[in-house]
């Protein structure tokens, strides 16, 4: 079975609402015959969805995976397989090193008619493939069109793809009415809440063509609500009138942007359109090369992403029980109940290989960094003071407690039976500990005066310690998890 240990995760290359995307390599030591065939030594994109935080129901995510797995088209990002680990879903996809078309638009502001024509024809092939399978993309836009290493076009992000029913008789072939997509690219029939079919992708294709030619989709100066109201009145001629493109190009876009979906041509028809047929280039390598060279010359650094859900932030942590409470069940009956026997810890994928350049964090730090909730301030070790100055190294005995959290209450009677007093139980406690670590008198005195000072502040501004403790622990956790 595929798992995280079969991959080497390099840097985070993108993030979205769904989770983070990592660049990765397949290490290929899975022996399971049902595992997908994944090329070795080829860069891969691994989309990591945190299911514990995802608001999307699992069923919908599964649906997307099933869609992806039924596709085998050279113009759509290739899907290799999926696996789980901790609470994450990892989807292994083809990696498109040159990112989305937005990168090109950011650099060039607008694309030439020839480049646009090529991209649109490639996307049209992808849409034709989807429509053939009665699938509709529903979120076509430049941001969802990627460029691979060779400057070839790949349609991506099938997150809101919809499946049309096969029996077109009852609904006249149009049986979707979910309101999805991105406002500026959305077809009028979706906005008007009518049922729709693949023709809504054709509309978005026209808008995307305008986006590539002008740098922005029409009406992007408006806020999305206003744009939504205007789209059902959008007149392609008004937009095209002042644009400097060939009559063929105008005709193509005009055909896509017809208000009546029935009037819009199918992908097959569009692929026969002269504008696409006379397209002479086979990739956008030239544009990419120029852009990259100039970026290197101007020493512009490629943008690095900070993952939204760092992989070290696990729900099921190594050395922690999977349960928060240890219930009292009689040994006898627990043993009798076959199911409860030996529940294995399935989630500890602690053999992840994250190849970041930062100095390796020791296990203790990583573990502490996971406690990012405010209450984590309770654990003394989450506020480790690095012994930079004349302070001795922390004694290890304090940190053992954290390994067996459920036994903590027994030892720290302070915390029993009462709510947490951040000043007394956390701040003062820590200051005392720091004082113990001080090796000379001046340091001890400094800490004592700090204690007195803080005590006064806390008296005058109750809650100050609490806020400080929370902020410090959140920050430490954040830094540790980078």
């Amino acid at each position, binding site marked *: *079975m595929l798992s995280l240990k079969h991959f080497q995760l390099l840097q985070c290359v993108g993030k979205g609402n769904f989770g983070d995307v990592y660049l990765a390599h397949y290490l290929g030591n899975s022996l399971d*015959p049902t595992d997908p065939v994944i090329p070795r030594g080829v860069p891969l994109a691994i989309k990591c969805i945190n299911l514990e935080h995802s608001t999307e129901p699992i069923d919908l995510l*599964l649906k997307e995976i099933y869609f992806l797995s039924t596709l085998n088209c050279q113009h759509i990002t290739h899907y290799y397989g999926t696996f789980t680990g901790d609470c994450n879903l990892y989807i292994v996809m083809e990696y498109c090193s040159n990112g989305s078309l937005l990168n090109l638009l950011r650099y060039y502001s607008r694309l030439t008619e020839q480049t646009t024509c090529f991209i649109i024809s490639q996307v049209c092939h992808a849409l034709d493939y989807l429509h053939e399978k009665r699938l509709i993309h529903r979120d076509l836009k430049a941001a969802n069109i990627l460029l691979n290493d060779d400057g070839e076009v790949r349609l991506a992000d099938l997150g809101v793809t919809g499946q049309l029913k096969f029996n077109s008789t009852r609904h006249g072939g149009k049986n979707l009415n979910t309101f999805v997509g991105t406002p500026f690219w959305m077809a009028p029939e979706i906005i008007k809440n009518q049922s729709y079919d693949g023709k809504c992708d054709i509309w978005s294709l026209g808008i995307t063509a305008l986006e590539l030619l002008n740098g922005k989709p029409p009406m992007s100066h408006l806020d999305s609500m206003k744009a939504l109201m205007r789209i059902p009145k959008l007149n392609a001629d008004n937009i095209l009138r002042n644009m400097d493109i060939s009559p063929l190009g105008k005709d193509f876009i005009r055909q896509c942007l017809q208000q009546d979906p029935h009037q819009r041509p199918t992908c097959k028809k569009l692929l026969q359109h002269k504008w696409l047929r006379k397209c002479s280039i086979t990739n956008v390598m030239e544009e990419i090369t120029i852009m990259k060279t100039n970026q290197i010359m101007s020493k512009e650094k490629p943008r690095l992403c900070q993952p939204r859900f760092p992989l070290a932030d696990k729900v099921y942590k190594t050395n922690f029980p999977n349960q*928060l*409470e240890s219930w009292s069940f009689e040994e006898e*009956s627990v043993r009798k109940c076959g*199911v409860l026997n030996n529940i294995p810890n399935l989630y500890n994928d602690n053999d992840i290989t994250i190849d970041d350049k930062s100095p390796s964090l020791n296990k203790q730090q990583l573990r502490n960094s996971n406690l990012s*909730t405010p209450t984590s301030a309770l654990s003394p070790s989450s506020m480790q003071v690095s012994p930079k100055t004349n302070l001795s190294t922390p004694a290890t005995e304090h940190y053992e407690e954290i390994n067996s959290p459920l036994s903590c*209450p027994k030892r720290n009677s302070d915390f029993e039976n009462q709510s947490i007093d951040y000043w007394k139980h956390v701040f003062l406690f820590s200051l005392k500990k720091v004082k113990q670590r001080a090796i000379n008198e001046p340091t001890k005195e400094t800490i004592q005066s700090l204690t007195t000072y803080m005590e006064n502040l806390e008296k005058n501004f109750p809650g100050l310690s609490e806020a400080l403790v929370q902020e410090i622990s959140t920050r430490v956790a954040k830094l540790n998890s980078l």
Partner: protein
Amino acid sequence: MAFWWKKSPKTPSDYVKHLIEQLDKLESSPTVSDNRKKAQDECGRQIAGTKHFLLKETDPVPTQEALDELYYSIYQSDLFFTLLHSFSNLDFEARKDVAMIYCICLGRSKDNKLPTVDYLLAKPKFMSILLRTSETCITKPGGSDIFLTASGMILETIKQEQLCRIIIRDPQIWKYFDFTRLGSFEISSSSLQVLTELFTAHPKLVSTEFFSNEENLNRFIDKINKLMAHGNYVTKRQSVKLLGTLIFNRINKNLMTTYINSSDNVKLVMILLSDRSKNLQLESFNIFKVVVANPRKSKPVLDVLVKNRDKLLNFFEQFGVDNKDSTFLDEKEFIVEQIEALPRIVAANGEYALGTSPQKNLVM
């Protein structure tokens, strides 16, 4: 592809005949050979052509008579049997097309009848072969993909109540519980999806014809408990949700009373209730609340609850604190009241004494 039908103007039934001949050729040719590849390609073309015809995507659009004739010959020749037999030997796209053809046929309605459903009802063996197709491919390369496509066909079949009745009687369905624990993620999640559809699509049918049988009932509980205890994160969440849905439906009173009166089940639910995953906690709470709200708890269940009275109260202090949903809050309040009303155990030995003093759980 549009010209496929035009190329040789035969009748639709000739095409079915031709397809079956090609499938025979595919089966009879050696595993690695040019002939086989040729037969595979030809099958793919024929299957795609049939799909386009059924979808009325050919030019000219087929007449209703031609369509009826095609359907008729599909039934007459038992084409679905032949297609399933060669399923794993077809190529990627052809398999998807087979699934699509099957789905189109299933949904066909004529004179207020569903002819394909009636046809399949007369051939219950098909259901049994369909359910077993997934199993045969599980160890083959590309197995996930075949499994997913076959599951898609099963899901469509389940939607038809009469066909679902045949499936639910097939002992093969128990295997789907095991499939969720082996093989790739796609195999495990789609098996669970099949089970979810199977047990929830037609509640009345499942309740009167499946859970009414005590043996089925106990076996189901045993199987779903295993998924809840040992599955991966997705399996756990989906299986707890499935059980919750079933228990919450009044029609499954039988299942509910049996489930919530066994202390072993309650222990498992409590373990999941205190799981580190907030989502699993919430899903398990939906089952646990039924356990606690039950006015006639069995002695063993009551014992478990009483023994953990203080731990539970302590646990619920922290449980779902950031949840603002008013229904949830009401339910939680009610559950806490019920637990408070449970008798306290007077400290008798060390172990119990520990439980009587409320503790703060330090690592929430």
